[in-house]
């Protein structure tokens, strides 16, 4: 049923797109600043800063996985029509450079993580190459940097909206501060010895570093790598020896594997936590702020009991 609805939704999306194209270009010019954000979380930041003055188009929508995303010609068209393209950087969107070139867009490309100190992937003995952890938004301190970068870029692209952007940014930063307080409070309530979980996708490095939480992942950083029997065995041993209390599913990785590990170790299965993408509109994590709230609620529920 859900799939049918979303098919219907995408049909509507196509219709809207057709209407948008049909509108005379002149009518659009004085309207909103067209920008593209590569994935849903970044898009949410841009919406909050840009407010009514920008229209944000996403390449990887909610619930999508930017690691294994396949660009389509429609995406190149979106880029060509944009004035500003926001990307995460840190090689999160490996496909974006080629796509930008192929689209021939004249938009300026803004790397939203500019100024954030990258974390190396914490990977002790793995054979795959060392890299930078791209999931910087998982720390709210970094989210502030994203927002500031987005504000600066929008001011450059649309100087007339400077005041609006600055006001929106200030409002949003206040909201972020409130959420950050909630997250810290939630973590403080979890006994220190229980602040560690297993999750299927290594995307919470920044969260863990910022808030003193240990995330142990059965997979490497990318959802592209396939898991081996040795990895699973290691995790199971680790859960048993370190007495890790909970295993969390993620919205984008193989839930069957998590279930198997939980069955075998007796660890509790936590709810869904969101890492790389927001939930669809109306879901429990349809904005960045909701996502952070949702995640901390899930962690508390599984670990404080």
């Amino acid at each position, binding site marked *: 049923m859900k*799939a*049918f609805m*979303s*098919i219907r*939704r*995408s049909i509507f*999306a196509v219709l809207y797109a057709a209407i948008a194209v049909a509108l005379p270009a002149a009518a659009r010019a004085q309207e909103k600043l067209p920008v593209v954000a590569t994935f849903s979380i970044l898009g949410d930041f841009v919406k909050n800063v840009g407010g009514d003055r920008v229209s944000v188009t996403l390449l*990887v*929508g*909610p*619930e*999508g*996985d930017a690691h*294994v*995303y*396949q660009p*389509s010609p429609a995406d190149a068209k979106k880029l060509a029509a944009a004035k500003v393209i926001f990307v995460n950087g840190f090689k999160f969107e490996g496909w974006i450079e080629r796509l930008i070139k192929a689209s021939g867009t004249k938009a300026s490309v803004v790397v939203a993580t500019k100024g954030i100190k990258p974390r190396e992937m914490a990977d002790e003995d793995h*054979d795959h190459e060392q890299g930078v952890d791209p999931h910087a938004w998982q720390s709210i301190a970094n989210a502030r940097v994203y927002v500031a970068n987005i504000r600066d870029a929008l001011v450059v692209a649309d100087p007339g909206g400077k005041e609006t952007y600055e006001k929106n940014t200030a409002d949003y930063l206040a909201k972020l501060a409130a959420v950050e307080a909630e997250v810290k409070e939630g973590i403080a309530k979890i006994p220190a010895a229980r602040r560690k979980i297993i999750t299927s996708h290594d995307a919470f490095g920044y969260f863990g570093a910022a808030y003193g939480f240990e995330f142990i992942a059965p997979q490497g950083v990318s*959802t*592209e790598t*396939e*898991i*081996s*029997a*040795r*990895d*699973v*065995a290691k995790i*199971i041993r680790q859960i048993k020896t370190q007495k890790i209390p909970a295993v969390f599913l993620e919205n*984008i*990785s*193989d*839930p*069957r*594997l998590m*279930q*198997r*590990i939980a*069955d*075998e170790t007796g660890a509790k299965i936590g709810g869904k936590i969101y890492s790389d993408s927001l939930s669809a509109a109306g879901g429990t994590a349809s904005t960045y702020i909701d996502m952070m709230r949702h995640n901390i609620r899930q962690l508390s529920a599984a670990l404080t009991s």
Partner: protein
Amino acid sequence: MYDFLIAPFVEFEFMRRALVGAFALALGGAPVGVFLMLRRMSLTGDAMAHAILPGAAVGFLVSGLSLFAMTVGGIVAGFTVALGAGLVARSTELKEDASLAAFYLVSLALGVLIVSLKGSNIDLLHVLFGSVLALDDATLILIAGIATISLLTLAILWRPLVLECVDPNFLRSVSGAGAPTHLAFLALMVLNLVGAFHGLGTLLAVGLMMLPAAAARFWAKDLTSMIVIAVAVAVVSGVVGLLVSYHSGAAAGPAIILVAGVFYVVSVVLGPVGGLRRHFVPGRHLEA
């Protein structure tokens, strides 16, 4: 030795489950593979595996990683392509391989289209690659059930199947069993591929079916021993592949198939029946 071969299976339940899954796939798939090979339909399995993917993907999109939906989707897509291709081949000038190619390509494209309609990119890799390490009860029962059905059906259909392999025109001339046998056999192939894609994924499902069969061809002249050898090769590939994945950290599915591939290469070189060996070590001349 114990630590190397037995301990992984004693310590970890997921390894035992993977082992049972691999055994069931070997028992059901390898005999079907032998018949496919003898009927010169080795590549049909590959085409059918691609034809199943869209069905499974549609099932996946409609209800997530649901065993039931993905199985039904795969079976429906597989049967549609097999029957459609057979129908076109029998009633038109087009040969079976060409019509099968046409049908499975259309099916594959349709699947990709449906997936892209969804807009989001939920990890289809899990459909493509499956996970032999995450077999739950329901999946194991499904795979074992398919193996049971396969073996029973093969036992019942043994004679007409062998006849159909050797001389389909003869079978057609003496009884009407030709078409039903062929259909039942195609159904078995689809069932086994669907079972295998839960464990190994669509891309690798065919591997455990065809490689042991091709290897067995070099060791036996009669059908029964060929099937026994094929099953044995598949079983050993499963065990060794899992151990390789456990000790080296290689992905489990590909490891199993690659071990079967090694068996195949060794058989090509050393196999006594029609292998390379006869070029280097001439047999005794038979003299009167």
